């Protein structure tokens, strides 16, 4: 059994803007991805969901914590070992239009896979392999091979990239917002394809900000906020019985066809643009129902401020320097998770 496991993974980004400072993108994130399982990673912009994908693909090195694949730390891979890792773990990203070089034909991505991983495979065998992969993603080889990227639709381009991953002996697929740029009519085809691949044993990390899409495909759901897990567990448990205020707020904001938002008139609340002042008052003492959109937005900025303040307290002053892992650990302390029911963990309010 090949599982990918994150253990207390944290990542600090150093901000290049004026004043410098560190931004915590991930705060001690731990979870496991098993074969045949789809985990949807849901969070708003800045929640760290893309960073997790990048850490798994070794595009970003975590500040602390480890990622293990089959029990082996992925940070230890290099050279040939790393190449073997990529044979099993592949990613597909949000924007299919910029994943291809427009000068070359789209199927050049397959040639590159062949020259790196299958140099000894004969032409005949290789084209059979491509056909099988295209068949798995429901593409007709005649429609897509030999075409330039601009001649293909977004859905076709995205499926070509998934087929590319399938050419390899892929065990884990990191799918980062892969359908948000597609039209509604082709979105579902890609979603259904993920379901089919999962049934064949592929583990998929489905990164999205769209709760209804995440719900449709996934077995387990992780809700991220400010780089920390706030709720995690079986998808149906989280969607039918959300416990954390933040999850509840997200669910009430999702636009649904047959249910209107509870439209309450806006209160004229004065909040400063950096969200500092009146923000805290919005949340404390009020339940999830009181998290109206306006207070919610400010409350998010407020929590960011709290984290930044903690960082300043640890590192001192505006110009923060990471000088030791123990210090980082203090600043990054995420809210503790407790078990609400089997396979359903909820974080303490922050």
């Amino acid at each position: 059994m090949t599982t990918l496991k994150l253990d207390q993974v944290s990542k600090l980004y150093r901000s290049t803007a004026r004043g410098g400072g560190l931004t915590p993108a991930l705060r001690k994130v731990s979870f496991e991805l098993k074969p045949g399982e789809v985990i949807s990673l849901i969070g708003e912009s800045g929640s760290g969901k893309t960073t997790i994908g990048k850490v798994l693909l070794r595009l970003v090195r975590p500040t602390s914590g480890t990622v293990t694949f089959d029990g082996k730390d992925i940070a230890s891979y290099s050279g040939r070992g790393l190449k073997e890792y990529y044979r099993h773990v592949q990613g597909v990203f949000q924007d299919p239009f910029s994943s291809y070089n427009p000068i070359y034909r789209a199927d050049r991505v397959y040639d590159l896979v062949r020259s790196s991983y299958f140099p000894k495979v004969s032409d005949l065998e290789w084209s059979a392999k491509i056909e099988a992969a295209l068949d798995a993603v429901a593409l007709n080889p005649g429609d897509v091979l030999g075409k330039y990227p601009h001649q293909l639709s977004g859905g076709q381009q995205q499926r070509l990239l998934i087929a590319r991953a399938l050419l390899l002996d892929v065990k884990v697929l990191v799918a980062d917002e892969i359908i948000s740029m597609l039209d509604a009519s082709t979105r579902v085809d890609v979603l259904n394809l993920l379901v089919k691949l999962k049934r064949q044993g592929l583990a998929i990390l489905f990164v999205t900000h769209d709760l209804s899409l995440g719900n449709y495909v996934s077995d387990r759901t992780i809700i991220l906020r400010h780089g920390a897990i706030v709720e995690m567990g079986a998808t149906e448990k989280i969607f039918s019985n959300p416990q954390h205020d933040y999850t509840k707020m997200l669910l009430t904001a999702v636009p649904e066809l047959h249910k209107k938002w509870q439209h309450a008139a806006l209160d004229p609340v004065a909040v400063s643009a950096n969200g500092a002042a009146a923000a805290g008052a919005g949340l404390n003492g009020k339940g999830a129902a009181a998290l109206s959109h306006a207070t919610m937005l400010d409350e998010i900025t407020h929590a960011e401020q709290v984290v930044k303040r903690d960082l300043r307290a640890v590192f001192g002053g505006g110009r923060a320097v990471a000088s030791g892992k123990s210090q980082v650990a203090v600043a990054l302390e995420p809210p503790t998770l407790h078990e609400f029911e089997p396979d359903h963990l909820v974080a303490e309010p922050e």
Partner: protein
Amino acid sequence: MSVNVDKLSVAYRSHRGDVTAVDNVSFSLADGEIMGLAGESGSGKSTLGNALVYLDPRMKATGGNVTVDGKDLPISDNNAMRHRRMTEVSLVPQYAMSALTPTRKIGKLIHDLLKSHHIKDREAVLTELKRRLELIGLKDDVLSKYSFELSGGMRQRVTIIMSTLLNPSLLVADEVTSALDVSTQRAVGEMLLEFRDRGYIKSAIAITHDLSILAQIADSIAIMYAGRLAERAPTSVIVDNPLHPYTQALLNSLPEVGVRHDQVTLTGIPGRPPSLMNPPAGCRFRDRCPFAFAKCTETPAFEEVRPGHMVACWKVSQEHADTATAGHGQPAAKLPVEEQV
């Protein structure tokens, strides 16, 4: 009727001839109505919306006319349009998040706007501006900030404030919620409703590919396919009782919260929209339509099958003719002008 669009056609110039992106489109908007305009990418929805406000040099109107509040809107005449923009028609452009220049502070941008429109009583407008900023939960210190100092949702809200500052009759909002998180999406959607209710804008066209957002904010929805309108009806009718096969397929492909793959398998729409370079004759959805029959090689008229419900489909108009002759016509339902929740 505050806005009336009659047989409007808009083409893009290209070196291989004109490409008609909006083909013979007619609709009207009542006072206080927010119309949603939905369709796949390349369906011409943004072209239609943009044409009503600013016809860029690549585009030309090849037919039809537009009236706003009973007055003709000279959409082909850029000089005449200059005085009508912002005050009568206004646009929140697609990618509004990056529409604000990073080199000027927000306050300076607004100042420029007022200057170029020769607003005499600037103080009054600025007071109103501060009131509106407060209404949507922004303090007036955003005016002394650069656009990159604001979050995406703040930038989107500031852009809408600027576009609606001079109380236009018609606001065209192009994909205003698309790049935002769900909670910010909701804030921006409710802001549009609030501005309509307070009379800052008389009517609006909300362009998006996301039908579930339109279900929240629009009074009526128009579905566009390959440059033509396919269906137009009050929101509840489109959502619960669509008639055009394309609308039906589009709704069937949307996952809802609570629906999982092991319970319901959703289906996409096979095929792709036709190229507008050389569009096929007849109904343009024909090749992807499960109900297509011989008659579909002729172009269906966009006609009213029930009060307030327009459809361009031979199958629907035939069934409608059948029920009408059999005497089972539906009782008339009025188009709701303002549907409040």
